[in-house]
């Protein structure tokens, strides 16, 4: 067995994207011994790919904007399933978190009077996204990274966490993982842990997510017994590249539509006008003329239907393609070329321009893009207490995409980046308090640690098993075909069967070489997490027999009144299976509920 090292910290944060970095800054500033553990190099986490911006009701462009409107937009966008307290905290605290980034060196685009400029995005009544062109995620991760480095946070790069262990009292006490460069095992003992591992996209064939998004955090929390919330709600981003095939799934920012881009079908028709749902009819433009006027005058016109929440747009695109009105490569057209000047497009959307030019040989200032919906974001995940990010496992906290509740059934664009900041900080605060109040040195059973390491190395001992890449590919095909944007009971049940078989195959994969920087072995150790998460998604998708937000059921095409009042919780049973329970939504205070009723001006 390779060498095994052990470290002791107050707080260990798993994941170094926006949420993990923000949590680490908080715990470090509070004087706690902090370790930041991440699978990639520092600064490469998936946050770096975020494009459009961070939503915060600063009111720099439209002074009428405030947290109440942002709260309303978030709750409605989430089809009223969001945790109201998280949506409230998020709407109230986002502006301060953005200004904080500026104090740490971020350079956002400016208004003409020198304040932070804000851009329009789907589902937001006002232009609300602080941004830097279309590379806001890069700006955010670099700012947080530089601040964490300045504070002296200890970073353990290219280190994968396999399992979380509890002490005799059931408190999270150790994380066991391995260094990817050497393959050596490492144990982090700590008084509190924050999971900030992001998404689960790598279980689908076409996704905007990077290789890291294998749901590690969701899985280690579930294995440790944490409650998992609303796992059925997976977001398919309506506009991703479809061609060339190998670029399929690369994100095309919603900013294209926020900045004037229009969706068209093969006939050139702006089809989104045909898909305005009753819930959003009163705030959506009825004609192309009104929609076009809105860009300059939000007060007297309503938002273009191209900027409906993502779930609505994704479903509409899917319907157009199914009806035979799609683009040559199976998407629809996203046209900004005929609507804005080349200079404007290159200034506002530089990386979109670059991305299409390089990968598709297409000039977006002269030709329309082809786009379609692909897996993008996980609304569900680890259940957390709204104010603290505490999970149901003592000593374990979660924030960012791995945590659930904030976005309900569907996330609005731009709400993710501000979510990372608001709840990354809050999880850091609460983890600090927990660690500060925990006496003694966390201890776990040595034998448990040994068992985890032994199990991880098993693929090396098998010489006739199949490649983990084959199993992964089949998992991706399964989820893509059977647990996609549009779902049905028959397909979901078939998916569960397929996942059972994939489970068996995963237990028999074999890898070659040594543990040192071995992607085949790394994938073999990612597979159990992907399978657990895929199963939780599929189970919940079967149970929610309605269509709402990220869950669209062919066999139950309408929202169900009763199911609209519950969240779905899954938790591990001692026998290794998961129980599934409907839990009523937490009751919302009357003054907040009143905000939802309000019709826009």
């Amino acid at each position, binding site marked *: 067995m390779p060498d095994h090292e052990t470290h002791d910290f107050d707080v260990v944060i798993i994941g170094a994207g926006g949420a993990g970095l923000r949590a680490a800054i908080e715990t470090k500033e509070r004087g706690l011994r902090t370790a930041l553990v991440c699978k*990639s*190099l520092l600064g*490469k*986490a*998936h946050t*770096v*790919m975020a494009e459009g911006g961070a939503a915060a009701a600063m009111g720099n462009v439209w002074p009428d904007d405030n947290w109440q409107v942002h709260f309303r937009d978030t709750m409605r966008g989430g089809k009223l399933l969001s945790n109201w307290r998280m949506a409230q905290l998020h709407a109230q605290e986002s502006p301060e978190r953005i*200004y904080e980034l*500026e*104090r*740490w*060196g971020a*350079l*956002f*685009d*400016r208004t*003409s*009077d*020198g*304040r932070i*400029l804000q851009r329009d995005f789907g589902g937001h009544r006002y232009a609300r996204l602080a941004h830097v*062109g279309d590379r806001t*995620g*890069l*700006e955010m991760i670099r700012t947080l990274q*530089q601040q964490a480095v*300045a*504070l*002296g946070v*200890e*970073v353990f*790069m290219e280190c994968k966490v396999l399992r979380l262990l509890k002490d005799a009292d059931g408190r999270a006490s150790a994380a066991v993982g391995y260094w990817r*460069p050497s393959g050596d095992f490492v144990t982090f003992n700590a008084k509190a842990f924050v999971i900030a591992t992001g998404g689960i996209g790598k279980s689908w064939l076409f996704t905007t997510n*990077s*290789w890291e998004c294998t749901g590690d955090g969701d899985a280690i929390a579930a294995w440790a017994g944490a409650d998992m919330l609303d796992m059925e709600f997976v977001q398919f981003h309506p506009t991703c590249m479809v*061609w*060339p*095939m*190998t*670029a399929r799934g690369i*994100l095309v920012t919603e900013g294209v539509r926020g900045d004037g881009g229009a969706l068209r079908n093969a006939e050139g028709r702006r089809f989104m006008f045909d898909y305005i749902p009753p819930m959003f009819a009163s705030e959506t433009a009825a004609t192309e003329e009104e929609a076009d006027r809105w860009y300059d005058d939000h007060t007297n016109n309503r938002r273009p239907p191209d900027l409906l929440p993502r779930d609505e747009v994704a479903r509409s695109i899917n319907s157009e393609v199914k009806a035979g009105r799609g683009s040559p490569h199976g998407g629809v057209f996203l046209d900004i070329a005929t609507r804005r000047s080349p200079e404007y497009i290159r200034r506002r959307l530089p*990386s979109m321009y*670059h*991305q299409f030019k*390089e*990968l*598709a040989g297409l000039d977006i200032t002269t030709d329309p893009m082809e786009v379609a919906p692909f897996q993008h974001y996980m609304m569900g995940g680890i259940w957390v207490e709204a104010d603290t990010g505490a999970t149901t496992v003592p000593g374990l906290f979660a924030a960012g995409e791995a945590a659930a509740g904030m976005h309900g059934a569907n996330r609005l664009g731009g709400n993710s980046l501000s979510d990372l900041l608001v709840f990354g900080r809050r999880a850091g605060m609460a983890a600090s308090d927990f660690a500060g109040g925990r006496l003694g040195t966390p201890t776990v059973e040595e034998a448990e640690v040994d068992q985890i390491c032994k199990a991880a190395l098993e693929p090396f001992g098998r010489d006739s098993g199949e*490649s983990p*890449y*084959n199993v992964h590919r089949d998992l991706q095909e399964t989820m893509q075909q059977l647990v996609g944007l549009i779902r049905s009971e028959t397909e979901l049940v078939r998916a569960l069967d397929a996942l059972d078989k994939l489970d068996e195959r995963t237990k028999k994969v074999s*890898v*070659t*070489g*040594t543990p*040192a*920087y*071995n*992607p085949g*072995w790394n*994938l073999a150790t990612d597979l159990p997490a992907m399978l657990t998460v895929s199963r939780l998604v599929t189970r919940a998708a079967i149970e929610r027999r309605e269509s709402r937000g990220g869950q669209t059921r062919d066999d139950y095409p309408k929202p169900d009144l009763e199911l609209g009042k519950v969240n779905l919780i899954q938790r591990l049973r001692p026998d290794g299976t998961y129980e599934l329970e409907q839990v009523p939504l937490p009751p919302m205070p009357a003054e907040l509920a009143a905000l939802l009723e309000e019709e826009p001006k």
Partner: protein
Amino acid sequence: MSPDTTAGASPVNQDVSLQVPAQAHLETHPGLSPDGGPSVTLSIWRGDPGGGAFVEYQMPAIEGEVVLDVVHRVQAGPAPDLACRWNCKAGKCGSCSAEINGKPGLMCMTRMDQLPQGVPVVVAPLRTFPVIRDLVTDVSFNYTMARQLPPFAPRPAGPDGIYRMMQIDVERGQEFRKCIECFMCQDVCHVIRDHEENKAFYAGPRMFIRYMELESHPLDTNDRRELIRRRTGLSLCNITKCCTEVCPEGIHITDNAIIPLKERVVDASYDPVAWLGRKILRRTKRSAAEAAADAPAFSSPTREDR
């Protein structure tokens, strides 16, 4: 041991066990049987600090692919343990830098159909950094240099607690903040590419744009010019612009960062008028010593120092 990156050159420390005939993969791997269709060949450096060699992998050609796509198919097929870094596969994270046909490039943004056809595409790790395995190098040098930088120290905000900056004033800094830390500028910089001994006191182009970004930041109060002169090795750069040429973000590293930085450093240290001005006028920026005390590397070395 650094790999030789010249196409067709004899491999460093040739390890025969790594040399598998290309045809073998086609015969042994299901789904890759030669069907007479078009194919592509990657010649990938495989090895570790002890040495290695180029290994050829012939794969069916697929329209529109980038180099990273083919590397992924090699991993999923004949070589599951082929080490390479990647994350976003969209040119945004800077993880998959390699030397492709002898030139640094992002594997995710280099299309196969834009490379010379009919000959193997040679893919080697960045030469300036020590090899860990195959295409993965130890880039901790860059993280060490980042920790030696005295961080951003903003002046107080206005009475309403909000900073006001004009777009034109943030644009210079925004250009440098486009940097995705692919470290290809560091890789081609001849000050360290062929001179390991210079690494101890040379920050490199990536850090020069970071220093210039802070120099041009409308809010910053740290004066780093003396530190830049004494500790970053800026004077070793003789402006060959190799860094600018390889930057995938098109940052004008030499013209907009290195040359202005050199001028500022010279002005600060040797210009008698500027010296007199500083003596007479009120100082608005913090001194070199004050700034240096802020740099995290001098107070708390971290894990990356290993």
